């Protein structure tokens, strides 16, 4: 995403904005500063550039229902990061990881303004539409500004020789057509529809794949999952395969990331050893009531035992607690894929299954739960 010029980032569409409800407020109501001053330096004394960092104070008074939920949103808390970090760290007491997180991860948290007014701070910020408040975030300038290197590139077909997702290519669907505002603001919102604390216990969502799939393919394609559409493959495999196993194509995986602080500039930096296209079927590491499928597609994440070595030795002593090939939901869904061409595309084809021989010895133990021990037999084999 090309960065905006400095003036573009802060140019207000004053006429349009003044006609909106938010435009009725004096600028200083949210941004403080010195409203009557012409000199930039004086006018900006006390300026609050990103008021929604304190969303309870600035957004909450009028949007209480949303901000109350947003306090625990994964977009805000980044709890998903800590869920996997602490699983591998084996402890909740980790000052070195805290320092690492502050340097390399914390800047990705999201505020109201990052979705509804500006491009996210992590990509340099800048108003989307002259400081107008957009109810619906922009696909390219908000959602994939952060979720770009995997989801965005897959969904919009930016990976070489890989078609864009059917939902985008033919349906012209934006992220919000599947991912609701409630999901964005309230990570446990869908859980709370059933887990009310009466009967089913209340739950805490600490990872994006906690709870049921949202969106779930069957929300729009119920006949496919039930097999009532007459498709033999849906009848045969509907319960045991994640939809992406048949309807996803090559997606991105990464290897061996290392983070550090640059000696030269003092800025945080990272190095990843490799980024490549994969299509790998494995056992479901998150098999549960909500995700009962036996086989799913797996993406290799760039975690490495020494990923945080800059900050200390052996910071992930429980490295094998989680697989390095993780549950994935590639956003490049196609109706017809190599897997749908024939039964033999999968049956008797070891190339697309995660088998032990494909793993380095250092990663074998971590991935025991997702390895496919026996590739499905070719058809006709007794």
């Amino acid at each position, binding site marked *: 995403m090309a960065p905006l010029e400095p*003036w573009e980032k*802060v140019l207000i569409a*004053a006429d349009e904005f003044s006609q909106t409800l938010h435009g009725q407020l004096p600028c200083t*109501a949210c941004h403080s500063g010195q*409203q*009557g001053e012409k000199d930039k330096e004086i006018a900006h004394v006390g300026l609050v550039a990103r008021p929604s960092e304190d969303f309870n104070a600035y957004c909450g008074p009028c949007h209480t229902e949303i901000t109350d939920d947003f306090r625990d949103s994964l977009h805000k808390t980044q709890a998903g990061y800590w869920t996997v970090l602490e699983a591998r760290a084996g402890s909740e007491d980790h000052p070195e990881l805290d320092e690492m997180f502050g340097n390399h991860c914390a800047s990705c948290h999201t505020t109201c303004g990052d979705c509804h007014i500006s491009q996210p701070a992590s990509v340099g910020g800048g108003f989307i539409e002259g400081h107008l408040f957009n109810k619906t975030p922009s696909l390219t300038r908000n959602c994939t500004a952060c979720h770009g290197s995997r989801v965005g590139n897959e969904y919009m077909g930016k990976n070489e020789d890989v078609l864009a997702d059917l939902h985008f290519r033919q349906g012209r669907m934006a992220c919000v057509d599947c991912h609701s505002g409630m999901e964005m603001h309230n990570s446990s919102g869908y859980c709370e529809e059933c887990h009310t604390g009466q009967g089913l216990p209340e739950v805490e969502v600490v990872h994006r794949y906690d709870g049921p799939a949202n969106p779930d393919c069957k929300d729009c394609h119920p006949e496919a999952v039930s097999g009532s559409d007459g498709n033999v493959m849906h009848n045969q495999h509907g319960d045991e395969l994640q939809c992406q196993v048949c309807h996803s194509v090559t997606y991105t995986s990464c290897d061996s990331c290392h983070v550090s602080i640059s000696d030269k500039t003092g800025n945080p*930096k990272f190095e990843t050893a490799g980024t490549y296209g994969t299509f790998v079927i494995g056992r479901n590491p998150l098999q549960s009531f909500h995700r009962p499928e036996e086989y799913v597609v797996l993406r290799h994440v760039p975690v490495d035992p020494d990923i945080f070595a800059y900050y200390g030795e052996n910071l992930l002593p429980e490295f094998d607690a989680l697989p390095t090939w993780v549950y994935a939901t590639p956003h490049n869904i196609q109706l017809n894929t190599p897997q749908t061409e024939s039964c033999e595309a999968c049956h008797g084809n070891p190339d697309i299954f995660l088998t032990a021989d494909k793993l380095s010895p250092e990663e074998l133990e971590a991935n025991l739960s997702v390895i496919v021990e026996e590739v499905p037999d070719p058809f006709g084999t007794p």
Partner: protein
Amino acid sequence: MRKNFVLLAVIVLMTVFAGCGANITVENAPMETATEETVDSSSPKWVLPTDVPEMADECSTCHSDKERLIDTAAPVVEVEEENEGAG
């Protein structure tokens, strides 16, 4: 003559209806005894500031003037890309 009669009738009617009003005795009204402030959850907790002094809105004036923003922008510091590989 007819006009005076109508006027007289109106005065008489107003006098009669005046006597039909509620007989409110303020002295006997119950006293408010609330001891804590109650919050009406339906009302906004945040109200538009009313004490904003009348002054030129220099914020909007400057931030809607492209040329002025260009002229006053802080110099862009080129940040050397040090990351390697996809993030």
